[in-house]
């Protein structure tokens, strides 16, 4: 999730110009749900990493995957594709 304070109209650049690169523009607060991976059940197949349309799921050195909540939009593609169903979409509070 993005906890940075977004600028208001008085200080935002004019003309709706993005003042950050797209990488710096955290979109994790768009989603209503977030994926939670159960590593007990995970088979380390890494399909979720390949299916994630945002590139928000990375593969760790130990072979498990993890979700970057700064960019995850909560689409649920990972949970849908997981062959061992170890990803649950949890509603955000």
């Amino acid at each position, binding site marked *: 999730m993005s906890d940075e304070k*977004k*600028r*208001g*109209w008085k200080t*935002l*650049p*004019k*003309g*709706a*110009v*993005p*003042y*950050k*690169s797209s990488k*710096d523009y955290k979109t994790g*607060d*768009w989603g209503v749900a977030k994926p939670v991976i159960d590593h007990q059940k995970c088979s380390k197949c890494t399909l979720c990493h390949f299916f994630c349309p945002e590139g928000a799921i990375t593969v760790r050195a130990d072979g498990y995957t993890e979700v970057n909540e700064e960019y995850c939009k909560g689409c649920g593609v990972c949970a849908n594709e997981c062959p061992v169903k170890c990803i649950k979409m949890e509603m955000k509070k």
Partner: protein
Amino acid sequence: MMIAKQKMTGLNGDEASAFATKQVDPDVVAAYPITPQTIIVEKYSEYVADGLVGSEFVAVESEHSALSACVGASAAGARAFTATAANGLALMWEILYVAAGLRQPIVMAVANRCLGGPINIHNDHSDAMGARDAGWVQLFCENNQEVYDTSVEAWRIAEHPDVQLPVMVNFDGFTISHTMENVYILEDADVKKFVGKRVYMKTEGPRGEVEFRLDPETPITIGPLDLQDFYFEHKVQQMEAMKGALKAINSVDKEFEKVTGRKLEFVYPYKMEDAEVAVVGMGSVMGTIREVVDELRAEGVKAGLVKLRLFRPFPVEDLKKAIGNVPALGVMEKAYSIGGPGAPLYEEVKTTLYDSPKRPLIADYINGLGGKDTSPEMIRGVFKSLQKIKEKGTVDEPVSYVGVRE
């Protein structure tokens, strides 16, 4: 500063617009011909063919493309001009919002014509009223001199650092666009000096402060996806820029007066000091109303007129001042809002005056739709109706149609 040398010449409204634009010599002109604006495009094509301007003329296939080309050119740093009317303006509708939302200081001439259908090529203000919320500065001209003056001034207004918004120069189709009048014109050099070089808005990209234009040396994105977390904030910026335009237009008007000797205002009150019945409106019919006011005054009727030249931003304070304490006010407008409580100008004038402690009784007189003539006799009828309202103290018919057969 001395007033610049000027000469008088005969020009119709379209020619006045084209001639002023020729003197400005914008980088790009992209336009599609539509009656009653066609003369502007024709004239400008001649200027290009004769080598009198440096403009790149883009002969597009539609008005949607005309304004799109202007947005692209303007974003690349060019001065861009287009002209349209009626259904052409309607076809631009989507891009009107893009031009304003992306803060492109484009100038567009609109020879106001009613919107079809049924199809009709003559004048009313329904085209411009359909564009009133798009975020363009909107000026309405009464005569050809105002068309010339506004077409020169428009660039300075659009590019003013506190504005940076597109400007629409409105003038009545045929009544102005095709009617020749004497117009004082400046010399090319004085126009060039007045408009100067294009002024760019300062903004901030990922690498810090930059000029708002597409330049490979200072890369920025113009027109990004702008969602729920930023769009509203950017809209407020536009609204604030439009508010700031009031002050900016006033300062440009003052500079223009120094050059030409002609004082341009937002609002022109006429015989309003002691008026008991008055009319407010825009465009070429204001001249006829002024004549009727003079006639009525000679007959002992305390009649008055308030002409609006500026519609967006709406000059609330100037209008309040001009209307003063008149007891009965008629709004005469060549526009409508089918199903609305009244036509656009009526609603805005009423909103403006609602909180005034001595607000007048107000009635809406829709006139001249589809080019129907608004004759002096009809205007007398409006004043007669206003006198009745004043005597009775109530408005029995808030919205009525002038000169329509039943």
